[in-house]
């Protein structure tokens, strides 16, 4: 035992040295260092393609958004990171507010990405988008029964609404967008209405809400478009559950469906700034955008890129054109509002 402990001690020492010098002196090759809160396998294959096209190696750490933001902030001006990728506008706003990004001037990006999906000063750019859609039971509801997010708070849906916890960022941004549209008091009343209509205390993920509607636990669910799209191509049970619900794009007659996005920006202290810009431009290219959409069932952000057949099958929809930076700013207020409403 003692011997094995000593040899393991040696192992630790060797590993520590290796790791130490490994990171400190491995700057021979052209690299771009990415901190990403997206962790989809599609992303990995796109990064590989980037390396083979440009010869720039992509070093990746994936993790939770907030942990990564915290890490970037604490690393400060010596951070090895060039790029920060995250999901949800609220997070982008937080990163922006904590001074993590630097402005980027790129005519290609301006041309590829619509103005409401990027930061006005080029601090960050949208990468993909997802719509927060309503799914209604085919058996127990009719077309037109529910049309707007506002209807979720309508007492006629008492005990019928399935929606996940307020801990989830997508709900936070949804409430953020409602604050933007209805003002604080309107949004607070909406939250209370939704909580009163819940079929059960919020639990599970987006797919669980859809499955709940299929199984009869409630009649309407709120979920992200790509979860539903993925269920359609999933296991037998998932496809069966998905077949029992119908997609509703809310607020088509007025401001449009709430759209959230994943975004990317160059870190202020980026040691490889040129590579980082190349990297973002690559991800915004039609080819990469098409792959994001195909691999992960997301809506591409570049208008010129193709939307995949599954999503096209849901039909065209009008999206809420309010700039993501705006409802991102409402994030903290949204959470407190949901806390007060008892939305767990």
């Amino acid at each position: 035992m003692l011997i094995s402990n000593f040899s393991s001690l040696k192992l630790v020492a060797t590993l520590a040295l290796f790791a130490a010098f490994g990171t400190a002196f491995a700057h021979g090759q052209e690299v771009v260092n990415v901190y990403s809160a997206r962790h989809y396998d599609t992303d990995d294959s796109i990064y590989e393609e980037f390396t083979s096209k440009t010869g720039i190696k992509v070093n990746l750490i994936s993790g939770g958004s907030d942990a990564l933001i915290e890490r970037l902030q604490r690393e400060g001006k010596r951070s090895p990171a060039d790029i920060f990728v995250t999901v949800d506008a609220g997070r982008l706003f937080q990163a922006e507010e904590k001074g993590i990004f630097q402005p980027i001037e790129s005519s290609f990006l301006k041309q590829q990405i619509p103005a409401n999906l990027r930061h006005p000063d080029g601090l960050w750019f949208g990468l993909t988008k997802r719509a927060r859609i309503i799914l209604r039971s085919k058996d127990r509801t009719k077309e037109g029964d529910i049309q707007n997010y506002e209807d979720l708070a309508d007492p006629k849906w008492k005990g019928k609404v399935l929606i996940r916890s307020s801990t989830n960022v997508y709900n936070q941004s949804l409430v953020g967008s409602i604050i933007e549209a209805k003002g604080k008091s309107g949004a607070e009343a909406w939250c209370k209405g939704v909580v009163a209509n819940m079929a059960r205390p919020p639990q599970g993920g987006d797919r669980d809400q859809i499955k709940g509607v299929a199984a009869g636990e409630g009649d309407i669910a709120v979920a992200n478009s790509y979860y539903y799209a993925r269920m359609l191509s999933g296991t037998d049970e998932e496809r069966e559950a998905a077949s029992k619900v119908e997609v509703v794009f809310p607020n088509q007659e007025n401001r449009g469906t709430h759209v959230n996005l994943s975004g990317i920006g160059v870190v202020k202290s980026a040691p490889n700034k040129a590579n980082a810009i190349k990297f973002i431009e690559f991800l915004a290219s039609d080819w990469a955008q098409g792959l994001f959409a195909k691999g992960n069932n997301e809506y591409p952000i570049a208008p010129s890129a193709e939307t995949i057949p599954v999503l096209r099958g849901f039909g065209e929809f009008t999206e809420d054109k309010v700039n993501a930076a705006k409802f991102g700013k409402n994030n903290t207020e949204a959470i407190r509002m949901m806390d007060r409403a008892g939305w767990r």
Partner: protein
Amino acid sequence: MAKPAQSLRSACTLVLCVLIASLVAVPLLQILSSLGQPSGGTWQHLRETVLPRYLWNTMFLAIGVGFSTMVMGVGAAWLVTRCRFIGSWVFEWALLLPLAIPSYLLAYAATDVFQFSGPVQTSLRELFDWSRNDYWFPNARSLPGAIVILSVNLYPYVYLTTRAAFLEQSSCVREMSRTLGLGPWKSFFRVSLPMARPSIFIGVSLVVMETLSEFGAVDYCAVDTLATGIYRTWTSRGSLVAASQLSLCLLGAVGFLIAFESLSRRSLRFYSGDASPKGSKRIQLSFPKGLVAALFCGSPILAGFLLPVTLFAYKTWNHGDERAMEMLSELGKNSLILATVAASLTVLLGLYLSHARRVRPSLPIRMASRVSGLGYAIPGGVIAMGVLGAILHFENGLNRVFESLLSWSPGFFFSGSIAALIVAYQTRFLSVSLGVIQAGLTRIHPDLDSVSRTLGKSGFAILSKVHLPILKRTLLCAFMLVFVDVLKELPATLILRPFNFDTLAVRVYQLASDERLDEASTAAIAIIATGIIPVILLSRLMSRGQLIETPFRQTQGRRNHD
């Protein structure tokens, strides 16, 4: 006459102990330093809205899980060490199996199977043609659900420590209590149980600490505790300050727990007696009683191990993660190396600390070992931020010095290295090895130390020639516990790992956080398969030969000072 100075040596010991303790203390101080900072009204808001619920749930969860793991762990340990019944020899080692299952995976499996839209309730509805309001079914996503799930997941800690204590208990003490007119039951409650108390406490306190810091499983069960509140406060409300302040509540609870136990057993000593296995006859249970015993031991294994394994195996078989298959050797290798190195180091440090505390029980050293035991109760994510903060603080300072002296700086060399990750694991898991090893050391009579000294051995020689060989199995036990824990650990791994370095647990997280649970099952099975090897080894080790760990003849654990 003044106590003569062996100053150099004890100074070295002291410095080393303080250094080890600072592995835990510095990150904790990072958290503590948040106390004075304003949290921008978040604290006020929390207190007005959710904090009472958090506290209430946390308390119930901790008490519920602590109590039920104690009943399950102690009961099972007693049954398999003292009785013979159907399959008792299988249960003896199989009872440890749930250790290999990460609690978040168990929670996922349980909620998936038992939720409204899950297979059990769906087939019930189809079978009886029920609809939603026609029947009642226990909700896995609830506080009682979380208690059950965590209990069947965590009871092996109590089982493990208690069983070791029962095996070492002198049979003559038990027999004596029988001659004093106590039946087997009474003798269990009045003799065996109180004698095993330090071990039971170690087990239960590990369970409670793990429960307090548990995030994944509790979150799946839709229960808001302080730990989930900490995450939520941090991630959603963006206030690490308020999150740290919440963590302090947890730390306070643990401090209270430890202080309470050490006060209540201050005057007692627990050296074991003569544990000659020949003397300990097992009671043969009658068939009906044996069946009850088998059910008692079997159901946690069924719920805590067979259910999730079957589910994941089924999912992997049908819709597995092809990519994980490809990456399995790479991910598995990373996980194994991390777990081995971290566990060895933890055992080494734990052994050193507890040895130092035994040989030189001065106040600073006692404090050092106390502090080192605190890391387990803080949610991994908060610990990780503490470690990261401490490391970056140090590195930034170093860089500034370099810059001012040489106008060149080496950049970050430690953060984002595997070594930093290993340090973070020490912070979190040192308490596990420390607890297990200290419990083992209390069972070695101090006269063995004294006699070694009269035979010319001191400090390190006593450690290596006496304590180590006697504690061999205890150390192995500590090693395996930490090994399995590291294998399952997520938040610290996620935020501190180097570029392009993934582990099995990270893979599970990446898929599960995207709700791709079917695919996540492949890596989950891989974690379980990796974790099960040491767990089975551990259980084999425990049930084989009881020769070594029997301290010498002594009827009463009494230190003789005439």
